[in-house]
């Protein structure tokens, strides 16, 4: 696992009450993205599940994740986030056709 993936996971575990984190480095898919090359940061995708997201809107959840990884900002050009509560994650994995955000 690359250093930055390790650091992302570590900082998210430290700052948020989470049970599951998956971080993917998608930088290879954006090799021709000029601005990203100039910034030196990578493209990452985080799937994160935790009780800390209970009762929070998606906007609030994203803000929590962004704040948690702030110290690694210079290494991140783009961060895609899927943030679930444990219940949402469970219902999603039990029935893959079901969107956990659907009401």
């Amino acid at each position, binding site marked *: 696992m690359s250093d930055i993936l390790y650091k992302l996971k570590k900082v998210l575990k430290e700052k948020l009450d989470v049970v599951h984190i998956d971080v993917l480095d998608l930088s290879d898919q954006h090799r021709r*993205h000029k601005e990203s090359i100039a910034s030196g940061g990578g493209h990452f995708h985080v799937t994160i599940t935790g009780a800390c997201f209970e009762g929070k809107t998606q906007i609030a959840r*994203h*803000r929590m994740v962004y704040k948690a990884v702030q110290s690694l900002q210079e290494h991140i050009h*783009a*961060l895609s986030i899927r943030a679930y509560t444990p219940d949402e994650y469970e219902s999603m994995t039990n029935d893959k056709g079901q*969107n956990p*955000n*659907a009401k």
Partner: protein
Amino acid sequence: MDESIKKQIENDINSNKIMVYMKGTPQSPECGFSKSIADVLTLHDAPYHFCNILENPEIRQGIKEYSDWPTIPQVYVNGEFIGGCDVVLDLHNTGELKKILAGVK
């Protein structure tokens, strides 16, 4: 944040029913996430105003502070921040975006 930048942002989000802060233009987006937003709004046939933050560095910094959101694109509907790329695409997938946009078209 400079007061004039804040005023400009407030004016933009309040005088346009849908306001998008993006990289590039709807015709020529310069980032995949900005392109996704342009595509989804086109799909909903929703007319929107946009600001190309690559040409407006002060707005680029200002909108991040204003929204308390560190990334671009950002979408405002009726003066309210509804999300960046992930959140707006989620709203689209759940059918919520259709309802939000129905109120402003």
